[in-house]
């Protein structure tokens, strides 16, 4: 299960750490919603299943919302999440992730987990499996000495598209999401879950836009 970290207190050390983290995330936040492993690869608008990479709530929600978006905005024949559950009673199941060997073309899953993905595909009989994870979900609150404070929500969305029957990983996804409650947006009294859903929706929009752009460019 994904570990979610809360850093909530305000001694000097956590304060400095929070600022350091904020600067790090602000400067290095990844925004690669859908990148092909090989330039020139042609995506076939055929059958696809979005597979949650584990059974954490954010991963499940990502898979659900992405399924809906892809269905609405592309010509893919997409398998519903309920159909996946019917065919695979244990779904969603954990597909272990690892630090990618090639960070410029990341394959997020552990080599040995490929068998699990192949087995999922064998039951779903689709041309593509898009496996997606939500990692590093956290909320960080910083309190200032003048009495003010800031809260930020973070989440990293990662994924890979695998083409079958070759079983070849043809794309990767890497998005660092961040949400901040704002007075002017009237979101300061919203629940923690509201901001997580907002990050999920944003990530899904970005992925879908990239896929649509890519398919449109390939057609043209």
């Amino acid at each position: 299960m994904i570990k979610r970290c809360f850093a909530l207190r305000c001694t000097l050390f956590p304060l400095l750490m929070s600022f350091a983290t904020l600067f790090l995330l602000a400067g290095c936040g990844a925004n690669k919603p859908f990148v092909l492993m090989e330039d020139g690869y042609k995506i076939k608008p055929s059958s696809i299943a979005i597979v949650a990479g584990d059974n954490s709530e954010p991963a499940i929600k990502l898979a659900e919302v992405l399924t809906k978006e892809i269905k609405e905005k592309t010509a893919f024949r997409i398998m519903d999440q309920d159909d996946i559950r019917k065919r695979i009673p244990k779904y969603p199941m954990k597909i272990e992730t690892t630090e990618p060997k090639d960070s410029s073309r990341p394959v997020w899953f552990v080599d040995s987990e490929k068998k699990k993905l192949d087995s999922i595909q064998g039951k779903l009989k689709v041309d593509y499996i898009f496996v997606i994870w939500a990692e590093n979900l956290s909320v960080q609150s910083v309190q200032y000495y003048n009495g003010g404070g800031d809260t930020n929500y973070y989440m990293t969305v990662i994924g890979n598209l695998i083409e079958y029957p070759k079983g070849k990983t043809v794309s990767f996804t890497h998005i660092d999401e961040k949400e901040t409650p704002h007075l002017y947006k009237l979101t300061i009294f919203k629940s923690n879950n509201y901001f997580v859903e907002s990050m999920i929706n944003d990530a899904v929009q970005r992925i879908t836009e990239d896929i649509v752009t890519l398919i449109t460019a390939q057609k043209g």
Partner: protein
Amino acid sequence: MYVKTVITIGFAIFLSSCSFSTFNLVDEGYKPKGKRIAVISGLNDDSNLFVAKMMTGALDKVSVFKSLSQEKIAKAIKDYPINIKGPYSAAYLDVDVDYSKTDVNMIKELQRKLGVDYMYVLWIPLATTSNGNVKQLHVVTQLFEFPGGKEVANGRFDVASVGGVLWRSMPTAEDDMKAAKETTEYVAKETAEKMGMLKR
């Protein structure tokens, strides 16, 4: 060690007394109609199954319920544990509990394979860490009576394991085990007491 124990029990007591109940009968004055019970892991992951196993042991220890072992459940239900839609609308950083969301039909289907009087289903949709040394499993439970599959009780509790207090190290597997044992025994006792099934 003493500090950790106090913190762990403190969490359970805090959660039961202040924010939510570990076991709450839907109808006060409910009279139990059988002894056979199965503790079901509502999600297909290790921590869910682990707490289900600990709760089974705890009920055996403190109550007169006859609980089905996790091994027997796994034999009777192919692919157990499976994901059962649970009583929450969202569980990202908080669990938004909604007991009407549960897939009761699936629970009825599983019960047919087990033939027990009660299905005690537990879900851990969220695990958090805080301050670098406290790991919490956020548990939501429902108890269903059979035949019928009526919900007779529900509850919430956290299994909080505490690591190094001075150096804020993460809890070890031993800490997790100890926290789960203490918490499930506490919750099992509450459950048995309110059901009138406490071992004398």
